[in-house]
Structure formats: structure tokens, C-alpha cells
């Protein structure tokens, strides 16, 4: 009896559609390879990596980290709202999360414009090759995450979710938290550790 109660209290599967978690695992695996490749390539070129890391705008990266963390927290608030059936409140938190995501894209876009204006490309050197490819790959994930959040917010605004059926909100939230999680590793690895 106590086992049955325990099984009910502690679910076996994470929130959202299980398919998104398979996708998340695949994405995390790809980024793990990227992160390891960066670290081991740096191992053979520490002076080059330290020199060009110093050219990055750490202040912009701080703003972006704060934006993504805050966005993730707003998504948490959206999930909390829909779990008690507050669809409009859920949509409002999602709009705020999307706004924070757009801040990230704007700041990152400004950084890219600055680098490209200086003639920096993927072939400038190994550091910039990793910096541009890693951050741009993540940038594309932010865009995809925003599209997902937008679709979920629009459906929530129309009352498409309620306290009993809100798998879509949790699925979008799980993906967005993964985007945040990846940046939490990328930020110190590329901008700070030397």
C-alpha cells in the first residue's frame, strides 16, 4: 500500500512529452562534444585562446546570462499558473519569457555585428572558430525555443490548456530550460575560464 502511495507521489517520467526529452538528450550530447572539443583544443593553444578570449564582451555575456535565467524563471511561473488552470496568467508569463529571449538575441546580434565589422570570421583563428560556431549553434536553439514558446503562448491565450491538460506548456518549458542550461555552461567556458 505504501509502495502504491509512493509511486503516485513520485512520478517516473519528467514533465512534458517524453519525445522532447529524447530530443533534449540528443542536443545535450552534441553540445557535450562541442564543449569537450573546445576544452581539449584550448589545451594545445592556451595562449591563443586566452588572448582572444580577452577581446570578447563579458558585460554583454552577463546581460545575456541574466536574460536567459530570468526568462527560464518566467517560464517556471507560466507552468505554475497553468497547473492551477490560469491560462491567461500563463500566457502573460510566457510573453515576458519571450521578451527576455529577444533581449538575448538582440545583445548577441550586436556582438556578432561588432565581430563581423572587425572582419572576424570562422577562419580567423581556432578560438574564433569555436566561439562563433558554439555561440551561433546555441543562438539557433534560442530562436527555435522562442518559436516554441510563441506557439505555446498563443494557444494558452486562447484557453488551449487547462489544469488537467497542459503537456504542451511543460514540453515547451523543458526545451527552453535546456537552452538556458547550455548557456550556463557556455558562458563561463568561453568568456571566463582561462
Amino acid at each position, binding site marked *: 500500500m505504501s509502495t502504491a502511495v509512493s509511486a503516485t507521489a513520485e512520478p*517516473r517520467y519528467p514533465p512534458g512529452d517524453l519525445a522532447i526529452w529524447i530530443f533534449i*538528450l540528443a542536443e545535450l550530447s552534441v553540445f557535450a562534444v562541442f564543449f*569537450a572539443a573546445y*576544452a581539449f583544443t584550448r589545451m594545445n593553444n592556451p595562449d591563443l585562446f586566452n588572448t582572444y578570449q580577452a577581446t570578447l564582451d*563579458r558585460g554583454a555575456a552577463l546581460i545575456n546570462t541574466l536574460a536567459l*535565467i530570468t526568462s527560464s524563471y518566467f517560464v517556471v*511561473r507560466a507552468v505554475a499558473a497553468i497547473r492551477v488552470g490560469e491560462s491567461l496568467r500563463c500566457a502573460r508569463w510566457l510573453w515576458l519569457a519571450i521578451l527576455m529571449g529577444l533581449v538575448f538575441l538582440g545583445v548577441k546580434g550586436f556582438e556578432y555585428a561588432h565581430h563581423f565589422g572587425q572582419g572576424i570570421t570562422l577562419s580567423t583563428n581556432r578560438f574564433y572558430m569555436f566561439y562563433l560556431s558554439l555561440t551561433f549553434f546555441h543562438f539557433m536553439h534560442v530562436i527555435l525555443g522562442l518559436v516554441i514558446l510563441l506557439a505555446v503562448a498563443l494557444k494558452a491565450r486562447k484557453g488551449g490548456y487547462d489544469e488537467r491538460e497542459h503537456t504542451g506548456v511543460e514540453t515547451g518549458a523543458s526545451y527552453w530550460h535546456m537552452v538556458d*542550461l547550455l548557456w550556463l555552461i557556455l558562458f563561463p*567556458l568561453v568568456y*571566463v575560464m582561462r
Partner: protein
Amino acid sequence: MNTRSAFLRPCTRVYVILIALTFATFAVGELGLSGLTASLLVLASALFKGHLVGDFFMGLHGLRGPWRWVILIWLTLIGGLISLAFTLTP
């Protein structure tokens, strides 16, 4: 309402911790702290932040079974690889 509070309160605390650790990481960079110890401390902070996001924001905290550990295993893996590379850096 209680259910929502039970979910939100720890997440709000986690949010504050994430913001604080982010400023600490930024400060390490701005102070120009470098070397293996500083790098590994910053990495440990990032891994801890990732663990908090996985457990509380992604909702893995209350699970039973293998899904409970996926993010922690991923963090341990990349943390180990990055630590190894930085430790072996001349």
C-alpha cells in the same frame, strides 16, 4: 494554491542563487583571476547552477527512476572532460 507555492518557492530561491552565482562568475572574469583553481571553481559553480536548473526548473527533483539523473550525469560528464582538459593544459 498550496501546490503552486510548493513548486514556486524553491524555484524562486533557485532563481536568486542563479543570479548571485552569475555575478560571482562575472566578477572572477573582471578581476582577471586565472589559473587552474579559479577555472575549476568557476566550472563547479556552473555545474551547480546546471544541477539546480535540472532539478527545480526542469522538474527532475521529484522523479524516481533513471530520468531523475540524466542532467546530473550529463553535467558530471562534461565537468569531468573540461576539468581534465584544463588540468592537462601546460
